[in-house]
């Protein structure tokens, strides 16, 4: 065949499936991410979002990068206990933030643009924060303590935004639960805690426009607080535990992840300081993904996370050069704090 010069003839190997996927293993996918900006070991990085964000914070810390925590556990508390109380899970004690709209709500509260409601749930006499239902394993002493601690966490969140060089946010879900006053809950009332009231609580599934708007709103609020802040988005590869959308959970997962991915792309395309790391793409690819999940095909495996985070750091080195890091002492093993797992309980009997 007589081939004349065309737009494809000068493209790099990464543009061709055969060259970059068929003929390469996962560890050779260094060019799968072309980072916009360097993340140096001394760059303060904050992480928020779904369960997957915990892996990123943990990987940064393990490799001697500056994972910033602005809400730390009291002196003397062991690391594992601290995590059970929501410390050292994200950069402050926000709990899981699954949707961009919930991130917007939390940011508005933290930056004083809106007030958090003083709704309180109770369980066996203990006060539960509806907006962080699992942050205290046995609940708070009373409503006053719950509100005081939430205020502290919002202050710590604000502080983390102000001090961060890079904010990593993992987008988890589009499915969400709201009440009639318009407040969004991180978990459906009645699952992790509280009671579901069909007159009061309702389901919503974000579309592309709503998701993109929420991400843009959040980015603008962050920028106003910290003009130098860079943002790194990634879509969590963890599928939905359960869906309330009436669709099959697999179809619902693809819908959710597709919208999140497209919305992220829109924000990244229009903002030089917002980047996207393709963790969802790597995990969900049939080429690489099979070995990256646990046997339940939902939880990402420790080895999978390691391999993907290896790519993250190698892409940084490939573009910006080697960096010197001081490795911290080995952290003890811990479980991820993933509230959404609770939904699995409701499907266990069937």
């Amino acid at each position, binding site marked *: 065949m007589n081939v004349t010069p065309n737009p494809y003839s000068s493209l790099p190997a990464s543009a061709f499936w055969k060259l970059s996927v068929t003929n390469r293993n996962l560890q050779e996918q260094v060019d799968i991410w072309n980072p916009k900006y360097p993340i140096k070991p001394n760059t303060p990085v904050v992480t928020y979002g779904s369960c997957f964000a915990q892996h990123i914070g943990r990987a940064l810390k393990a490799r001697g990068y500056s994972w910033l925590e602005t809400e730390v556990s009291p002196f003397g*508390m062991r690391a594992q206990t601290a995590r059970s109380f929501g410390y050292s899970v994200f950069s402050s004690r926000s709990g899981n933030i699954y949707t961009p709209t919930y991130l917007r709500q939390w940011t508005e509260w933290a930056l004083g643009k809106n007030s958090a409601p003083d709704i309180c749930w109770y369980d066996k006499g203990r006060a539960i924060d509806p907006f962080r239902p699992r942050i205290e394993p046995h609940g708070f*002493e009373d409503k006053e303590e719950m509100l005081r*601690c939430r205020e502290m966490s919002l202050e710590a969140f604000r502080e983390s935004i102000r001090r961060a060089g890079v904010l990593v946010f993992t987008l988890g879900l589009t499915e969400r639960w709201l009440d009639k006053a318009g407040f969004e809950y991180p978990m459906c009332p009645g699952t992790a805690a509280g009671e579901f009231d069909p007159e009061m609580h309702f389901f919503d599934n974000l579309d592309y426009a709503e998701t993109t708007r929420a991400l843009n709103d959040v980015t603008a609020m962050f920028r106003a607080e910290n003009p130098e802040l860079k943002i790194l988005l990634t879509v969590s590869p963890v599928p939905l535990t359960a869906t309330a959308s009436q669709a099959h959970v697999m179809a619902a997962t693809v819908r959710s992840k597709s919208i999140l991915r497209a919305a992220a792309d829109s924000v990244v395309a229009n903002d030089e300081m917002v980047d996207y790391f393709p963790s969802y793409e790597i995990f969900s690819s049939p080429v690489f993904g099979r070995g990256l999940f646990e046997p339940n095909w939902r939880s990402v495996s420790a080895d999978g996370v390691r391999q993907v985070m290896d790519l993250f750091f190698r892409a940084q080195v490939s573009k910006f050069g080697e960096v010197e890091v001081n490795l911290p002492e080995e952290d003890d093993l811990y479980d991820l704090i993933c509230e959404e797992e609770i939904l699995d309980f409701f499907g266990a009997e069937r």
Partner: protein
Amino acid sequence: MKICVLGNSFCIALGMGWDELRVFYPEISMSIFFSPGRSILNTEIRGSKIVPTDKRVLEYFQQSSSWQGEIDVAEFDRFLVYGLHPVPPSIQNDRAFSRAVRLAAYKERVKTCPVLPFIERLRSVTDAPIDFMMNPYPALPADCDPVPVVEFLREDIEVTTQLWNELLNVRFVPQPEETLIEGNRATKLEFAKGEYSKPDDPDAPPMIDLRHMNAAFGKVSVARYLDGLAGLV
């Protein structure tokens, strides 16, 4: 009453304080054994004796008291284990924590206390009363602004006292209130060792030590400790 004080470099202030006070307590003798950092853990029990397993500890024991390095537990009526356990920082804002978080931290602080194995060993050979004091809170320079935590300090002392008592029948002795900046986890600057010259380089600019305390601190600490014992009788 013969009291045996065991600890680390924080004991030096107690020793200086005791030197000034001993004439007022003729019925009490206080023998102080210390070695740096947590090296006192490098000891073992042989019969009723605490025996250093490392030469450095032996030398420190010999220097810090007139004894020959072995401590016969049976010769003492009471023990005070001092230092060897860091304290929460003065910037810790206890108001940010729920009571459940605070209680879990107090509990784990006792259970993971670095000197716990030493106290366990000591308890295994004596029924005599054992008292325990943590490191003094570091002193704060005048321009620092500690977080006032008065109500939480009280709770901390109350719970820690109970935990030590339950764990090994040990009496927890808090830092004397008059040495603290009121309601704070910080020692008043006047009690700090403060400026000192490096012994090997006297011409170097003076160092400032805010972690170790002076004779005045030792005097107050020993006096309050002994007053506390009188209250127990």
